[in-house]
């Protein structure tokens, strides 16, 4: 193989859409100072948004590893997280403790929902992604009714007039707003680094990395790589897939809590609806495919995706005086998912 062939081969491997997106971000970063947008603020924004979204993207990894495909059913985990957050507040916990309690309360929900979801996916091997999407949608719309009906009373959460039914947006002021971000926060000029959140992400990312190096983690990768091989090697394929779904669901629950503590609000009702798509496209932009993903893909992908989300509005606005960020975000992220779906992933089997 000549050098040139090798370069074209690695370009092919990388994929044109991914190349365009990376190139676009690099271009934005280069242009940014010239059009008068403040680079440090931008970078600080990217880091912050990375810290909010990182774990939601990380939640893709276990299911991709076990061959269940991209977890379009992310909203299910998010609902567990929301239940944890609202119940923690309802039970009267405040401050940092309310965050810890939210995680503790969310966990059993995530385990149960994940187990049910995993059981369902077991019955529909092959059609996971489409069904996951609709399981997510159904559960979100079911919870819409539940938020209205469930007997929540905390005055900070329910509608003031009716005295019942949760509000669409709940402020976390006094609860776990910046619970992690506030820990050892570093502020230099315009840059503010949420050290606590980043460390928390690092902790979970390390845990997943470590898990993939254990016996069971190895089995999970093998199941995703070739389920027949795994079955012949005595692996209980269904159980491993179930485990991966539970892990993904739990990570999504934690992910939304981390997102909320950074964002400062709980968003209920239809808010979780389309949360899966940004996470899916982020990990794909980071270099993952439908059946391969690494922690590195998560980190790179989240930075690239959030970079585009934060940079385009300001930079584009300054260049052409049009806010095309939303449109660019949709085209880039959906184009990335389409690209991943049309690649022949089974080619080497």
């Amino acid at each position: 193989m000549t050098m040139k062939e090798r370069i074209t081969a690695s370009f092919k491997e990388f994929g044109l859409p991914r190349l365009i997106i990376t190139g676009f971000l690099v271009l934005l970063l280069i242009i940014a100072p010239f059009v008068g947008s403040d680079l440090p603020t931008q970078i600080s924004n990217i880091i912050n948004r990375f810290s909010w979204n990182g774990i939601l993207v990380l939640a893709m990894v276990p299911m991709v590893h076990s061959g269940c495909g991209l977890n379009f059913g992310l909203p299910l985990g998010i609902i567990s997280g929301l239940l944890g957050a609202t119940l923690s507040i309802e039970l009267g916990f405040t401050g940092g403790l309310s965050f810890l309690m939210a995680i503790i309360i969310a966990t059993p929900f995530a385990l149960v929902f994940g187990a049910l979801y995993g059981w369902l996916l077991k019955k529909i091997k092959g059609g996971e992604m489409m069904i996951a999407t609709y399981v997510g949608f159904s559960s979100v719309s079911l919870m819409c009714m539940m938020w209205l009906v469930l007997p929540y009373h905390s005055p900070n959460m329910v509608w003031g007039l009716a005295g019942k039914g949760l509000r669409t947006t709940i402020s976390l002021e006094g609860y776990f707003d910046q619970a992690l971000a506030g820990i050892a926060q570093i502020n230099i000029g315009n840059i503010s680094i949420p050290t606590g959140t980043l460390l928390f992400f690092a902790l979970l990312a390390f845990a997943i990395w470590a898990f993939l190096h254990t016996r069971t983690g190895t089995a999970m990768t093998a199941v995703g790589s070739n389920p027949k091989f795994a079955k012949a090697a005595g692996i209980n394929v269904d159980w491993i897939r179930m485990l991966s779904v539970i892990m993904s669901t739990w990570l999504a629950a934690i992910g939304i809590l981390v997102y909320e503590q950074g964002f400062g609000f709980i968003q209920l009702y239809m808010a979780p609806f389309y949360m899966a798509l940004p996470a899916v496209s982020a990990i794909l932009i980071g270099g993952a495919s439908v059946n391969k993903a690494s922690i590195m893909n998560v980190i790179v992908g989240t930075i690239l995706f959030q970079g585009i989300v934060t940079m385009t509005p300001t930079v584009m606005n300054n260049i052409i005086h049009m806010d095309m960020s939303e449109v660019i975000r949709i085209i880039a992220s959906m184009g990335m998912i389409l690209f991943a779906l049309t690649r022949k992933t089974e080619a080497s089997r």
Partner: protein
Amino acid sequence: METNGAPLLKMQGIKKDFFGNQVLADINLELKAGEVLGLCGENGAGKSTLMKILFGATDIAETGGYEGDIYLDGQKVSFSTPFEAIEAGIGMVHQEFSLIPGFDATENILLNREPEKYNFISEIFGDRLNTLDRGAMDERAREAVDKMGVAIDRHMMINTMPVGHKQFTEIARELSKEQLRLLILDEPTAVLTEREAVALLDSIKSMSERGISVIFITHRLQEILTVCDTVAVMRDGVLVECVPSSETSITQITKRMVGREMNASTSQREIRNTEDSKTVLKIEKLWVDMPGETVRNVSLDVKEGEILGIGGLAGQGKLGIPNGIMGLYEAGGRVEFDGKEIPLNSPRVCLDSSFAFVSEDRRGVGLLLDESLEWNVAFPAMQIQNKFLKKYLGGLINWRDEKAIREVTEKYIDELQIKCTSSKQNAKELSGGNQQKVCLAKAFALEPRLLFVSEPTRGIDVGAKALVLEALRRFNRESGVTVVMVSSELEELRQICDRIAIVSGGRISGILPADSTTEDFGTLMLMGVI
């Protein structure tokens, strides 16, 4: 039988190799109009490759084409797609059905050749908007079915039909093509009941009377003698015999099919008599639902320390036996190992009872193609026996021991002479023979007491073959492991096995010592063929 005129088909000096691997050597064949030719030979003898060349299968062109000439009616032809072959009047009925399940027989017989009616819309938008002429379709399907001479329900949905009728639908489809002059039937009676098979033979005779030539491939030799004018026998890519059927017999055909001269390695080596050894594995009334390799009611004893061969023609069920016992396909019956019953349909228990299995489906089941050799070799041993793991927190965390994994992989790379760049190379980058060695290494790393090896030499070159067989023999001799080896190559079984069981029609048709004559094995192979 007409004998005058030029031959309908003449194949001259046909040669074919797949990447340097010669599969057909200088085949010469002639077929007159209305003549029925019976083509027989073991699996891998080159029958299907020859037919693919004649029928213009695309994978022939993709693998570099063929040498030699084909003449049809004295005209030289060369088909690059099946459609060209069909156009020239050749029809072929494959072993796998090519039918649309939700269509009835008529629709399938005329698939993509439906009579159409023009209408004003199709004038504008093109012929595909012509409506189907159901009446004419029915008429033409009826003609085809009449021509075949076997009555089938033309309005029955394919998915509710018995298998035999599906087969007849396919034949009727070929007969409905007006230009048809030569029909190739690839093991058509394999799925038929006895009565249907008789009907088919009658139908072949009537086709021949109408001047259609038939090439009839089957393992049921009696059928060939009944219906064919000429019998051609192939072996190892060579046409060993082509005689009028009146001048041959089942015994002679069998002998030609399997009859290789004993080679030195077989005749000189010791065959161990294991009759008195302890029975280590007892199989009773095993059935296995493996598509294409169904096993019915098999009982078999495996003796400790022996190498037991399981042979037979493809599709007769020999592959189903190890796959069923290892729990990869739905199975029933009773399996005892060392006097202990092994539950079926549970790969884990088999592996825990120190069985190991090298699958015939190397790329599908045997390997993690996208992972490194290290993973491939160490994975089952790690999962089943907790090898290559470092334990932390009192066994709570089982950490992959990369160093131990590399060591064991490198040991097997040396021992089995696996050609690779490093133990980190992905399995899919290796050649077939080296992949097979990785599969063996994977099984050896489990240190099993009983090893099932399925088609260990399929699709690998001669040098690698010898190495693989030698490795198996050494493993058996040095570690005292009982080996059950399944192979379609009788010669290879005779080289290393002590006893050989022959499977035919999903059942064991007999067990012979490895030094029995080829004729004896041949007879067993063809005994219960379905």
